[in-house]
């Protein structure tokens, strides 16, 4: 009999809904796995008491004959950039703690929000168990989880390698089997790339499909919250629970939310799949190119038609993003000033408020955050605003037009999620620009605001120096067309036949 935590999302929810397994038992199983996997560094806070209480309450309601929600008893981990009522929330940063020297948020007097993020509230409303907050690159700035203010997270496929970022902890939590689903956030690839590195499904909804209320903001015109799960259907059910207009976030779409699980049942015959040649040029790992070609050919065998695309502005993505996102971040992160929440570094009585701001921010922010704030500030400063910020905004339009043109002739775009598999800890952390290049394939979809996901398509071959590492296929669809890309991703899973490989258990 399959262990409850290894079941797909919907099947586990069904068992809890019918009472075949208690929510309390599921919570305990998840807590045990969370503890056993501690060395991977996926979690910043485990909400043990809260989740046990929630699980008991759920079991009581069921025993009274109440119908439980679509995610009943499903343990879900939530990226620490999302506000969870009365539970530590740090966005991976020491500036949201009281003491920068504690070893983890629980020791360091982490900030406790007075409200749940909308996504978190909606998951609770579906009776999910919010069990833990996951590790991340500080303020979502990073592609490896090495920029966490606390400790790095490690890839369960090879703990000497990164899990990707910035939603590294969420990807590890799902890949290791400690939780059944997770929420991450994606600004330039921060769900898709760690999903690819860890061998799980990760969805970046189209901009405005999911509320950002309660997501500690990095770049407001790019951020999106999205689900991670071991299979497409699981991600679809999570997305269903969180998607939709929110009066608390005026950038959310009024468009009705489609039936995402039902999309997974539709076959993809006749779907037009575009393959942009710019995603297959120099710099892509041979095995990734091969695996991606094979997966796309499999879609063709299942009845999709293929078409080559030309998306000429793809390689301007890194430059465009690192001007616009950093400019928006410089503005968003100005709220961390020591006044109302988090860290305050107050000197002697002679200090004025500006010294307090600078000392607090200098001490509380890590080096990548400071670097990006400075970059963004520079791009917005007098004399540089037109050449950098406005220029980048115009190039963003050119990149959107690449997608508009592509979607005139195809329904979905297929490409690699990342040019390389998971790299080693420390390999890119000294060279910011090389780290930024890790996102080259995920940035364009973020800049255009379209829907995108990563689905696992296999692993690299084991070799002398290297364990097998997951490879992800990226599928992109027009804004609002999440159903189309879920349909294509589910078709791939059917073509693959067997479930996605799981990380080998360490002896």
């Amino acid at each position, binding site marked *: 009999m399959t262990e409850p935590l290894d079941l797909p999302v919907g099947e586990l929810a069904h068992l809890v809904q019918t009472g075949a397994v208690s929510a309390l038992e599921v919570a305990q199983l998840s807590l045990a796995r969370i503890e056993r996997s501690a060395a991977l560094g996926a979690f910043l806070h485990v909400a043990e008491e809260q989740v046990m209480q929630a699980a008991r309450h759920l079991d009581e309601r069921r025993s009274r004959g109440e119908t439980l929600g679509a995610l009943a008893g499903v343990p879900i981990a939530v990226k620490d950039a999302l506000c969870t009522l009365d539970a530590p929330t740090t966005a991976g940063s020491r500036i949201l703690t009281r003491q920068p020297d504690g070893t983890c948020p629980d020791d360091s007097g982490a900030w406790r929000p007075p409200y749940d993020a909308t996504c978190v509230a909606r998951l609770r409303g579906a009776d999910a168990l919010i069990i833990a907050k996951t590790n991340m690159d500080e303020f979502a700035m990073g592609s490896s989880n090495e920029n966490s203010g606390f400790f790095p997270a490690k890839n369960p496929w090879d703990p000497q390698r990164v899990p990707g970022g910035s939603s590294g902890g969420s990807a590890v939590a799902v890949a290791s089997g400690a939780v059944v689903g997770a929420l991450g956030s994606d600004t330039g690839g921060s769900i898709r790339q760690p999903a690819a590195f860890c061998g799980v499904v990760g969805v970046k909804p189209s901009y405005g499909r999911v509320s950002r209320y309660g997501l500690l903001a990095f770049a407001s015109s790019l951020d999106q919250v999205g689900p991670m799960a071991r299979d497409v259907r699981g991600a679809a059910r999570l997305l269903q629970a969180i998607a939709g207009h929110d009066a608390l976030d005026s950038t959310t779409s009024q468009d009705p939310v489609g039936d995402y699980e039902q999309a997974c049942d539709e076959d993809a015959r006749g779907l037009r799949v575009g393959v942009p040649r710019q995603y297959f040029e120099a710099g892509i790992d041979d095995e990734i190119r091969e695996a991606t070609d094979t997966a796309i050919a499999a879609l063709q065998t299942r009845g999709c038609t293929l078409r080559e695309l030309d998306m000429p502005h793809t390689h301007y993505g890194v430059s465009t993003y690192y001007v616009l996102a950093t400019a928006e971040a410089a503005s968003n992160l100005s709220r961390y000033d020591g006044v109302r929440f988090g860290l305050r570094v107050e000197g002697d009585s002679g200090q004025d408020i500006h010294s307090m701001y600078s000392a607090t921010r200098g001490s509380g922010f890590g080096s990548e955050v400071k670097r990006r704030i400075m970059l963004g500030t520079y791009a917005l400063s007098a004399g540089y605003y037109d050449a950098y910020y406005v220029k980048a905004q*115009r190039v963003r339009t050119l990149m959107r037009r690449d997608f508009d043109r592509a979607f005139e002739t195809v329904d979905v775009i297929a490409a690699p999620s990342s040019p390389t598999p998971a790299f080693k800890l420390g390999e890119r952390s000294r060279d910011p620009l090389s780290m930024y290049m890790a996102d080259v394939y995920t940035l364009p979809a973020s800049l255009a605001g379209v829907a995108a996901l990563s689905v696992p398509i296999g692993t690299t071959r084991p070799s002398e120096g290297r364990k097998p590492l997951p490879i992800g296929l990226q599928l992109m669809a027009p804004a609002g067309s999440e159903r189309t890309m879920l349909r294509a991703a589910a078709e791939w899973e059917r073509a693959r036949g067997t479930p996605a490989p799981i990380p080998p258990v360490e002896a």
Partner: protein
Amino acid sequence: MALTKEQVLHVARLANLSLTDEEVHQAAEDLGKILDHVAQLQELDTDGVPATAHVRVSEMPLRADVAVPGLATSAVLAESPRISAGGFAVPKFMDEE
């Protein structure tokens, strides 16, 4: 090309960031390299291309002008490093000369 120390300090002051000498030196190099890469944007002809400030929102949606409850003051002040007289206490600030 690296930024100058003065450029870094200027930006750091605008951003209210206090940096060590080592951080200033590293930033000058790092930011210089990144900006060198970003210069590739100048290759593109963007005459007549409108700027995208936002991918979705063209008009700001409005809501009815009806008061709704917000956070309780106690919740707002609960996490403040220092409070005084029902507000956030901060070091004094002086007018710019």
